[in-house]
């Protein structure tokens, strides 16, 4: 995997881990607080339900007492009219069942058809519970829970009837079935409820069809469902509500499904999703940005090293960091400088040998190099060519060493004033090849060697050593040929002065298309005619390689010559 993706993935892993941890903690806290709130809400509902049951009990007590006042003075006979009046009381007070006892005899009863009917709701007289029996015998009100043979439970409220006749003992008992209908009135919507006493369930809401053993837990499967609510246990709450005279405590129990917890889970997951998505985006952005920051200098180093290996000696990387990568870049530049200096030293040595060997002066070499570079500038300005710093470097090397092959030619031939014979001429013709071989063997300068090899080829093919023509001759070689010829024409010799510039220009133009490339000639002419040409210095360049070699500098190729900072040309 590339370093960039390693960095991005590393960031992704880190941020996603953090997001997962944050999300998990957030979800845990959210669910816990929702659960607490839900439980509190259920407790509040339970308090309401409990209050409603207590209120129902109070109403029943009030109804019982009111009905007792009505029937106290009535001695019931099996008369339809009297029974009708008792029924009117039932309807008036919304009581399900009322019974009147005279001593141990059931004197009268009335019940409503929907909930009050059934032998299991009949009040056994006296109740078996000793506390209740004692209270009734003592003429006090009593309340208790009665369970019929079929399991139906009912709440009994008894009161003595204070009739006028002395020695008469009559009681009125009001019954309220403890069933789903009662629970349905007190249980809030979306909750299931139960009444229990002494660990036994008396009734559930909603009632389980066909079951005589109601059980709230068995209804959990029918609780209203919400999103993800099935993942949570139903909420339960129990509250003792009625303390009856038989010692029974009737409790209200409520159960709801954890709908809010499920919804909170969904909300939490949504938030988590957003955090994860945001985290991924952030991780990618940060990772990519860091990768760019780290990889840019590494990339430059890689490119620089590769360029160096390909022979680009002018490589110099920009420095701007103070970290390890900055140090690495500095070391690379130092290494590149040393390699380059080694080459420059070799070139310098060769240049000095040529200078010592030939009759040309140092100024000639400097002028040729300067004019070559100036001609290139003109060509570039006209848009005909575009030279990289490395190409300029190689061009300078070639310009400096274009006659290095003359080392292998004897001085008597080089300095012969008269015409050369065929053998001498043949020897002279070998010097470009010899020069190219010398430069080639320096390594990394193959292109400069090729330029040198072709530096005496004529545009029309009449040159040597290979008789190349036109575009087959490297442009650099064509430039050097024209510039060398111009300098030779205009150079002052110890025994004669150089030709005037106008003559030289005429000569150049006359030979354009024959010896010289017309394009190069025109560029050179522009250099010659528009710039001042001192006898001992380059026309425009103040920083030629040759001068730099002599002065121990790098020739300006690295400080301003490179078009692409941090990368070879």
């Amino acid at each position, binding site marked *: 995997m590339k370093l960039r993706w390693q960095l991005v993935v590393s960031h992704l892993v880190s941020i996603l881990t953090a997001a997962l941890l944050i999300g998990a903690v957030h979800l845990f806290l959210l669910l816990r607080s929702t659960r607490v709130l839900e439980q509190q809400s259920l407790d509040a509902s339970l308090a309401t339900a409990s209050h409603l049951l207590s209120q129902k009990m109070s109403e029943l007590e009030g109804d019982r007492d009111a009905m007792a006042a009505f029937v106290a003075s009535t001695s019931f006979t*099996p*008369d*339809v*009219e009297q*029974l*009708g009046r008792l*029924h*009117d009381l*039932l*309807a*008036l007070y919304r009581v399900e069942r009322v019974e009147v006892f005279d001593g141990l005899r059931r004197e009268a*009863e*009335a*019940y*409503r*058809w*929907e*909930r*009050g*009917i*059934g*032998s299991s709701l009949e009040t056994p007289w006296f109740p078996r519970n000793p506390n209740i029996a004692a209270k009734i015998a003592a003429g006090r009100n009593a309340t208790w829970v009665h369970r019929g043979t079929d399991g139906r439970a009912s709440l009994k409220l008894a009161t003595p009837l204070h009739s006028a006749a002395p020695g008469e003992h009559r009681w009125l008992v009001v019954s309220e079935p403890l069933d*789903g*209908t009662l629970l*349905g009135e007190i249980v809030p*919507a*979306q909750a299931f409820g139960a009444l229990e006493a002494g660990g036994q369930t008396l009734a559930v*809401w*909603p*009632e389980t*069809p066909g079951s005589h053993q109601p059980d709230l837990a068995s209804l959990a*499967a*029918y*609780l*209203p*469902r*919400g*999103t993800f609510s099935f993942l949570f246990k139903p909420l339960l709450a129990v509250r003792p509500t009625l303390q009856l005279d038989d010692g029974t405590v009737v409790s209200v129990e409520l159960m709801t499904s954890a709908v809010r917890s*499920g*919804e909170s889970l*969904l*909300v939490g*997951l*949504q938030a988590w*999703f*957003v955090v*994860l*998505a945001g985290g991924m985006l952030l991780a990618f952005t940060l990772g990519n940005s860091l990768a760019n920051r780290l990889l840019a200098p590494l990339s430059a180093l890689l490119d620089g090293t590769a360029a160096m290996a390909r022979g680009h000696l002018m490589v110099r990387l920009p420095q701007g960091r103070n970290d390890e990568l900055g140090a690495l870049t500095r070391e690379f530049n130092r290494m590149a400088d040393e390699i380059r200096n080694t080459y420059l030293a070799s070139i310098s040595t060769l240049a000095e040998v040529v200078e010592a060997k030939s009759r040309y002066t140092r100024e000639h070499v400097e002028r040729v190099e300067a004019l070559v570079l100036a001609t290139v500038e003109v060509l570039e300005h006209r848009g005909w060519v575009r030279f990289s710093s490395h190409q300029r470097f190689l061009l300078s090397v070639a310009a400096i060493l274009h006659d290095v092959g003359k080392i292998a030619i004897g001085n008597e031939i080089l300095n012969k004033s008269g015409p050369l014979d065929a053998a001498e001429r043949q020897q002279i013709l070998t010097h470009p090849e010899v020069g190219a071989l010398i430069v080639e063997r320096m390594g990394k300068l193959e292109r400069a060697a090729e330029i040198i090899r072709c530096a005496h080829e004529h545009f029309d093919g009449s040159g040597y050593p290979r008789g190349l023509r036109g575009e087959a001759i490297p442009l650099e070689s064509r430039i050097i040929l024209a510039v060398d010829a111009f300098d030779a024409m205009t150079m002052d010799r110890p025994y004669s002065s150089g030709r005037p510039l106008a003559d030289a220009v005429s000569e150049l133009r006359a030979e354009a298309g024959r010896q010289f490339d017309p394009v190069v000639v025109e560029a050179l002419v522009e250099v010659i005619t528009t710039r001042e040409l001192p006898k001992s210095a380059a026309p425009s360049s103040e920083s030629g390689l040759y001068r730099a070699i002599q002065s121990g500098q790098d020739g300006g190729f690295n400080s301003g010559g490179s078009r692409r900072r941090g990368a070879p040309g």
Partner: protein
Amino acid sequence: MLALGCRDASEGRAHLVVGTFWAGAGEQALQRELIRIAHDLGPVNIEVRRFSASALLDYLNRSQPREGRQPLDLAIVPHDWLGQLVQREIIGELPAERVLVLRQRLIGQALQAASEGRRVFGYPISAQVLALVYDPTLFGYPPRSIEEILATRFAAGVLPFALDVSDPAFLAPLVGSFQGALTDADGNLMWRAATVAEVLRRLAPAWGTTAGWRACRGSDLESLQVQLFAQGKLASFIAGPWLLQALEDSGRPFAVMPISPLASGMAPARALVGYQCVVVSRESRWGDLALEVGARLVREKANERINHATRRLPVLLRAYESKQGLAGPGGFGFLRALEQGQFVPATEKWSEELAQAQRQLDAFASRTRPAAPGDIAALLTGSEP
């Protein structure tokens, strides 16, 4: 994860409100079935709101958006309300595909009761019809006419017959029997004060005494009648199938048969058949869901459980084919009454005519003492003597 990110928790939860005037076992059975349906449908809350019958009709009439009330999504209403609910654009027509299913499942008369032409406006879920409940131990054979019941000599203190004289539904079969038909050729209710007075006069042995008067009108009359019957003090009375459970719980033997005709009448006594229908409000936010809930209440098992709990008669063809849900004493008697009965057209005109009849009978029954037979007509017409 994307789905999670795009769905809002609260928006995805439907909340349906069902209005009903069913109470007690009926309300519980409805609650139970709706809980089951909500459980099957997923994240749906179904809330049941109980009203009195008049309050439910009023709420339906007034719960239009302009009234600022939350409309009921569904309501359980008697089929004879459908006419006015449709006319006031409170309920909508059932989609054709749902009607197609109903045609395959329901008995024809039930669907007809909830229809106007080919348009169906509600899901009939149960039928109700009045029949004669009698104590077989007090009668040697099923009574052939009301007069025969009234002429039978019972032990002292035993009332021969009772009916709610304040309710047109109880008197209508006997009025129809007496005059030969309850409706004219155009289907209009024939409720003439003179005829009704004559029918009441013929029933006078039932209500003419102080005890009989109490057994034929008053608050919570059914409870009194059931108790009198259970105690052997009432030989027969007209009742609906919803009393079957109470009659069974009373421990008294009982039998059910179609209402006996008046011997002097010209036709059998055909009881009015009513259907309870689930209607869907046009204003419901969750119309499709409400339609689905209604459809599920007509499914076999749910419908059977509701009708078993409420002791109403089934409307599903399959229930009649299998005789399931009709078992138990009295079930077949009510079924026979249903077969002989005539359903109340769900038109507003009929509702108005029945309301008019109700007002007449209220005037007659509001007295604390039984009226003299000669005063009946005057009471019915409002010219109280």
